[in-house]
């Protein structure tokens, strides 16, 4: 594009120069002038097409909102105006001036003067011609009457009349006599045949002639009339050179008139030529200027475009793009400043990203701490909207993860009804607590049972960021353990304290019976026997009870061995065959052995079956099913009965000691079972069956967990 424009501009300049030269009347260009004009017109059209193309390109850029295109347009318009307005003004003035000046060459006075001059010259010549004509007539008369020889007479007459050249022709145009004043005019000038014919008809011919190489001559041809019919008519021709000064002047006048007339005629053409030249030069200049304006404005706006591109790159986060500083002007300075700014932004962004990364890390760290915390953590803003919650909180509260995300604490209860006491406590504490920290224990009823929660709340008031933090723990196990430990201690001591006097009581009672039975009369002896019997029996019962206590309270001393569960079950079941309750074993085959203490396991089985039998008291079609099977995580052993089931009132605390519904029972049975299974790292599940009955299921791990 640029070379093309430059080429056009240079060609245009050359063309304008050539045209101005051609206008200055040099012969070389005269011939080529139309071609020059055509070329100029072609070049103008070419430039126009170029400008149109540039405009199109610019328009497309504008439509695509290319940065800098508006500036280009603006600069272009300014440049074009700067070229157009003065150019048009100069053009208009020049054109007007041209027309006027050409017109001013012509006026009526000039015309008249030249015409007058010409007429003057003509009259002068005519006068001379008339004079020569008179001379010719006189000479002709003299010749007609002359007696002497014709050449001599002619010569004499010529000198007498002061004529330059005199020739006498015969009727047929042959020279009879010739007399000339000049040495050079030895050859007579012949008149044309037509002229001779005319003269023969008695019509003298007078003319002024321009004879090449000889000058302006007056020619008079006149007949030499005869006196007698017998003679032939002769013809006299006189040639008289017009005096050089007059001839010169006449020629000048003639030339002047001709030039003037030519100019008059050429006026339109001249105007056209000058106008065309001027217009073409103007067009070429203008178009060149506009085309160059394009280049210039593009060049001016180029650094802006580069800056814009860099800006866009920065917006996209690419700070690597630095513009080379090409010029030393303000654009250069601007570019440099921009580069500096880019570098600073890059540094700042890097620092920011580093900080962000650190923050992110800190946050991740905090979150990982929160999620690994065994306590549930909730944070609220000042309007009780949930801000942070960890997975443990959901787990402890027994609700699906993410259920309360972005919810207000008061709205929780409408979503999950079970959290109502929790929410109420938290709200109440925060609302009422004058102190910033509080602590409260809550019996939280979850879908899988009651849990003891320890809730601690803190009101945040650091740096205006108010809010609430609630931390809560599931201390069910802790409370259980504490309770268990306390009971164990009680049981151990009680057993110890009670067991010690029991043996002396029993021995004393037996001794009383032994010693006094024979000495007492029959009736007394009977009373004694019954009394001591009762004592002994009750003491034995008391002993059993105490043994249970001590069994529960004793420290765990598990002696694990590889046990075949099925063998163990069969062994135990044999003992219950005579109890009157049918027990159906459904034992899975090929079960692997479990690592367990067989004595403890026997205890478990005894307790479970005894419970079942107790529950079946008074039931119709009593039935117990003992099942063993392979299950996920180990071997499942379950005991099922169709008895009365477990009362709702104690269901939640069924594994706690001294919780029982049986009329006589220590309430230690299931507690011991639970303890043993815990020691084996197994699981135990108790459930009531529909319509009635209970089901206790134990899963023992195959290999004892380390």
């Amino acid at each position, binding site marked *: 594009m640029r070379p093309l424009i430059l080429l056009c501009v240079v060609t245009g300049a050359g063309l304008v120069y050539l045209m101005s030269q051609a206008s200055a009347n040099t012969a070389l260009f005269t*011939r080529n002038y139309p071609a020059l004009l055509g070329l100029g017109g072609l070049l103008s059209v070419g430039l126009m097409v170029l400008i149109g193309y540039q405009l199109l390109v610019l328009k497309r850029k504008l439509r695509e909102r290319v940065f800098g295109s508006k500036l280009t347009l603006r600069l272009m318009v300014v440049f074009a105006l700067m070229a157009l307005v003065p150019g048009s003004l100069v053009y208009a003035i020049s054109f007007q001036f041209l027309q006027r000046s050409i017109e001013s060459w012509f006026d009526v006075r000039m015309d008249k003067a030249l015409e007058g001059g*010409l007429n003057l010259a003509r009259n002068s010549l005519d006068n001379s011609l008339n004079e020569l004509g008179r001379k010719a007539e006189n000479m002709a008369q003299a010749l007609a009457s002359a007696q002497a020889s014709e050449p001599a007479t002619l010569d004499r007459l010529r000198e007498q009349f002061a004529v330059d050249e005199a020739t006498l022709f015969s009727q047929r145009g042959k020279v009879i006599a010739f007399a000339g004043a000049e040495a050079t005019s030895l050859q007579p000038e012949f008149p044309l045949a037509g002229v001779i014919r005319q003269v023969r008809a008695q019509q003298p011919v007078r003319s002024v002639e321009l004879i090449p190489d000889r000058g302006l001559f007056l020619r008079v041809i006149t007949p030499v009339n005869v006196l007698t019919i017998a003679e032939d008519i002769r013809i006299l021709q006189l040639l008289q050179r017009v005096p050089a000064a007059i001839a010169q002047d006449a020629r000048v006048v003639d030339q002047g008139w001709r030039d003037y007339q030519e100019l008059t005629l050429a006026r339109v053409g001249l105007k056209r030529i000058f106008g065309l030249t001027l217009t073409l030069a103007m067009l070429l200049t203008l178009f060149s200027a506009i085309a160059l304006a394009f280049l210039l404005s593009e060049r001016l706006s180029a650094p802006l475009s580069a800056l814009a591109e860099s800006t866009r790159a920065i917006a996209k986060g690419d700070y690597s793009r630095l513009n080379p500083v090409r010029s030393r002007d303000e654009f250069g300075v601007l570019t440099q400043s921009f580069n500096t700014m880019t570098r600073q932004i890059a540094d700042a962004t890097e620092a920011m990203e580093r900080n962000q990364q650190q923050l992110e890390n800190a946050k991740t760290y905090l979150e990982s701490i929160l999620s690994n915390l065994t306590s549930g953590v909730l944070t609220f803003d000042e309007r009780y909207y949930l801000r942070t919650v960890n997975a443990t909180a959901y787990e402890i509260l027994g609700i699906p993860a993410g259920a309360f995300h972005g919810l207000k604490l008061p709205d929780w209860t409408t979503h999950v009804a079970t959290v109502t006491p929790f929410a109420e406590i938290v709200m109440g504490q925060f609302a009422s607590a004058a102190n910033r920290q509080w602590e409260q224990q809550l019996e939280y009823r979850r879908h899988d049972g009651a849990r003891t929660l320890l809730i601690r709340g803190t009101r945040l008031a650091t740096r205006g960021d108010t809010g609430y933090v609630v931390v809560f723990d599931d201390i069910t196990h802790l409370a259980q353990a504490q309770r268990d430990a306390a009971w164990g201690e009680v049981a151990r001591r009680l057993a110890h304290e009670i067991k010690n006097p029991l043996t002396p009581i029993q021995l004393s009672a037996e001794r009383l019976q032994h010693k006094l039975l024979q000495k007492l009369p029959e009736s007394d002896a009977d009373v004694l026997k019954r009394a001591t019997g009762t004592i002994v029996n009750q003491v034995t019962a008391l002993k059993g009870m105490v043994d249970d206590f001590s069994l529960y309270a004793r420290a765990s001393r598990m002696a694990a061995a590889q046990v075949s569960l099925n063998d163990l079950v069969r062994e135990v079941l044999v003992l219950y065959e005579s109890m009157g309750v049918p027990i159906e074993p459904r034992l899975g085959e090929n079960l692997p052995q479990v690592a367990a203490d067989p004595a403890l396991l026997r205890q478990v089985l005894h307790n479970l079956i005894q419970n079942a039998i107790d529950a079946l008291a008074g039931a119709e079609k009593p039935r117990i099913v003992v099942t063993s099977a392979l299950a996920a995580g180990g071997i499942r052993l379950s005991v099922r009965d169709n008895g009365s089931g477990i009362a709702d009132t104690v269901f939640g605390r069924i594994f706690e000691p001294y919780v029982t519904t049986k009329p006589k029972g220590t309430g230690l049975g299931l507690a011991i079972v639970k303890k043993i299974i815990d020691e084996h790292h197994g699981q135990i599940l108790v459930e009531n069956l529909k319509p009635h009955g209970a089901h206790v299921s134990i899963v023992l791990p195959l290999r004892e967990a380390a």
Partner: protein
Amino acid sequence: MELSDEGYRLDAEFDIQLSPGLEEAVNRGVPLHFIVEFELSKPRWYWFDEKPVQLTRAYRISYTPLLRQYRLSSGSAYQNFTRFDDVVRALSRVRGWPVAEKGAIRSEGGYQAAIRMRLDTAQLPKPFQLNAVASRDWNLASDWYRWTVHP
């Protein structure tokens, strides 16, 4: 065209209609140059046509206002006329133009001869040249008149 002792001589007559503009130009002293072109050619299939004869003859019509004379000149020869019609008539007649040597035409097949007359606009003063480009009035040229010449 006829063969004489000196060679071939050409007589031709053109029908010249000078436009009023041209006549006015002559009357105002602008000389008009006319060119009569003559050529003999023989087509050749393998190369450009053979052109043994290519001749031009220049005529000039001028007006001397001082003498009120029209002059038809060709080379050094000239003729004066007092009337414009006469000079045009004289111009339109070409008499005895020796166009070819006696032996110039040898070929059996005969030659194509062509002649035309045109106004030499290149010799016009510059302002009129533009007219000549622009206007038909100023662009006077006869068509080629072609005929076949046998030796």
